[in-house]
Structure formats: structure tokens, C-alpha cells
């Protein structure tokens, strides 16, 4: 399957792989960093640092946790999760039989959501590659 924003995807996948000591063959765009790739809280510190260094940007901590999703129930959370669901065919949505709550959002972080976040920030811009 071809990846939209292929170059950005490849760079993010490389960074995620290095952060979590995963081989690219063991990851795909919709792997949950937490549930599938074993990320813990300190890994997100590391990940944000690596992304900031690689792309020459600052990433506010709350941004990496919520991606493109509005975080308030009744304030856009449900609509944004529903939209995400249609974009992420490979995500294990069966892990969430009930409604997604605010505290579930970190488990929704995937390579794809990070790529989408960076694209929304206007990347790929020129920066150290």
C-alpha cells in the first residue's frame, strides 16, 4: 500500500523504530505505539525530542498526546475519533469496545497520527534530514 506523504512517513517510522528498538518490518502505519510497540511514558519524552531535533520544530507536550483530536467529550472528541476510525483501517479498534475516553487518547497514537500531526504543522519543511 502506498503511503500518502511517503517521505514524511518513512522519516517518522525510522524515528519511532529507533525510539522503541523496533525493526520496520514489525511496524505499520496503524500500529499503536503503546499497545503494539510497547511505548512507555519516557519513550514519548524521547520521541518528542527526536522529532523536534529531526524537523527543527517545537512540539508542545499536549500535542503529541492528542494528535488531531479535540479532547473534550461533547466538544468534538467523538466526531474526531469517528473520523480517525475511517482513516485507520489497520488500527486495532477492537481493543476499544466502548466509547473512547479522554484518557484513551495516548493509545491512539500511531505512526499515521504523528505524520498527520506533522503535516498539519506544515511539514515536510526543509530541516535537517
Amino acid at each position, binding site marked *: 500500500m502506498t503511503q500518502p506523504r511517503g517521505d514524511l512517513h518513512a522519516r517518522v517510522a525510522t524515528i519511532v523504530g529507533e525510539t522503541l528498538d523496533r525493526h520496520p518490518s514489525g511496524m505499520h502505519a496503524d500500529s499503536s505505539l503503546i499497545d503494539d510497540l510497547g511505548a512507555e511514558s519516557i519513550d514519548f*519524552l524521547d520521541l518528542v525530542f527526536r522529532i523536534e531535533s529531526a524537523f527543527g520544530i517545537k512540539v508542545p507536550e499536549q500535542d503529541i498526546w492528542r494528535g488531531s483530536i479535540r479532547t473534550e467529550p461533547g466538544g468534538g472528541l467523538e466526531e474526531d475519533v469517528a473520523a480517525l476510525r475511517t482513516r485507520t483501517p489497520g488500527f486495532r479498534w477492537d481493543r476499544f469496545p466502548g466509547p473512547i475516553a479522554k484518557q484513551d487518547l495516548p493509545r491512539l497514537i500511531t505512526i499515521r497520527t504523528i505524520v498527520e500531526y506533522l503535516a498539519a504543522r506544515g511539514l515536510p519543511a526543509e530541516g535537517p534530514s
Partner: protein
Amino acid sequence: MNREVVVTGAGALTPLGATLAETRAAFLAGRRGIGPCRAFDASPFASADAGEVPGFDPRDHFRATKALKVADRRSRLAVAAASMALASAGWHAETGDRLGVLVGTSTFDLQMAKLAAAVFPDAARATQEIPFFAERALSGVTPLWLLTVLPNMASSHVGMQLSASGPNSTIMSDAAAGLQAIGEAADWIRRGECDAALAGGADTIVTPAAFAAAAQDGRGVPPAEGAAMLMLEDAESAGRRGAPVAGRVRGYATATGACAESRAIGAALRESGWTARDIDGVCGPDVDRIDGFDPGARRLSIVAAMGDTVAAASPAALAIALGGGFGTRVLCVAPAGIGPAAALAIEMVTQLP
């Protein structure tokens, strides 16, 4: 509670070999593990020689390899030595709630190269303006830097990677720290805080700073690295699981100040119920110069073959002695350097393979 403590396993990585068996064979063959430093170009120093552990793969010993990014060389050596000690003791328990970890270490590597790279273009300014230094260091150094260099990380990684979730601690007291770790962990078991413990030393001083210090102190001992960990167990628990008993811990003491070494030896002997004349083996980094023992007592000194492995030295000497041939009533002695001295009396039972 005052339980008997036995040694049921050991693991070591030293400049003589990446396992205890290799180390022991090389030591008995009279080989030296010293050569030109491979970690970096040490040729500008008075001597470029170092004692480095030959190739080993920490991935063989880390359950979660992701942790390697926050595991410095010292932590990797500690986990590998502890992992081999568990295997040597035939320990297969799923849970390690009653398994403690105590690592002695002398120093920690701030990884100055990473800090320097972050502030380098303006190094002169960074040394004079703290806010400038902080801004550069914080924005240029991975936030995991501190987690990598904290001195207690070796014992933490051993606990996490080997599921040893009993008491966990670190002793930092220069060269005696590794032997102190063994003595203190034996006390944990004696007091009933845990039933088993991985205890020993891990260090690496193969760093530019240590080469500079070695050039200045004039002793001519190459900076080196290594780790040696023993598996200590409550004798009854070990017996229940049919573990091999390599030795019995009979006495331990540590001392500082004037005549620290002889006072530590005296106190360890008193606890063991032995006199100096009963000792038929003396081991440690450099024990040839210690007198007062029977002239026939075997001596096992490792510093000439390995260089300065600091806190790993005494446990490594003890681990070699546990392989047999160096006496049955053995005293391991860590001499006082800038820190305390320590002595541990051990009765050898069955040779470790």
C-alpha cells in the same frame, strides 16, 4: 532471623573474557587483558592501554531491548553479569519478589561528549553563563540523558531486565563497593529481607577523564572495565530448590580511616570464627602484599591481568576463586583507596563450573 547465606552462582565479564569461564581460563593461562584502547583514540595520553571487555551482545541478556537506549556500558555489563549469575545458579523462577539486587560501582560517566556536542559552538560562553549553558544543554541533549547516567541505573536495569523485584540498591564507595555489595546483600538475606540476591560490582573507567587521572597518579595501572555478580541465597531456600552450593559466606566487614584494611580483615575473620592462620586462600585486586597469613596460602591478584576494574575487581577475583584451586577458607580483600576497605570470608564447598 539469622540465616546462613550461600553462593549458588556467578557471572563475570572482564578484560580477560566476556564470561566467567573465559575469564578464569585466561587468568589461569597467565594471559593479560590489556591492550591499546578501542573505545576511543587514547594515543594523546601517556599510555593508551586499557582493559576492555571483549565483544559481548547485551541483547542476549536484556528482556526489553528498548531499555538499551538508557543503559550505559556499565549497566549493560551489570545486566549481562547478573543474567549469567542467574543461569549459573539454575534460577528459573517466574517472579523475583524475594530476589534482591545490590550493585557496587565507583563512578558514573556523564557522557561529556554528548553534553559538549550540545553546547560546543559556544563552549567558552557556556562555561561562563549558566543560563546559556542550561538552555543549550536542555535543548540539545536527549531528555533521557539523566536516566542513562544516574549512578543507580546499573542496579535498576538488573532488577527490571531480570525480574528481580526484591530490595534494590547501589553502593558507591570507590574500589570496595563491589565487595561491600556482596557483604551487605548477604546481610539482607540473613535478616530475611529477601531469600536471594544478585550482588557484586560493575564499573567502566575507560573514559578520557580516567586516562588523564591514570597519567597523573603514576601507578601505571591501565583504566579498565568489567562486572562480576554473585548469586547469594538463603541456604535453606537454595537447598529446597536443589541449587548447587559453591560457597558459604562466613564473615564480612568494612572499615575506613587508619589501618582500614587490617581492621576490616580482623573483623571479617572474627565473624567467621577463623584466624589468619586458618586462611588458605587470599583473593582481590592486589593481595600479594598483604601479610599475616600462612606462607602456604594461595594468592589470587587480578589487577596485573585486568587493569583497574575498580568496584568490579574484588567480586571478579572472588568469582575466579569460586572455580576452585585457590583454597577452601578464602578471604577476599578490597583495599582502601579513596574509599573504605572491605573483607569477606568465604568457605568454598563445590567448585563452580
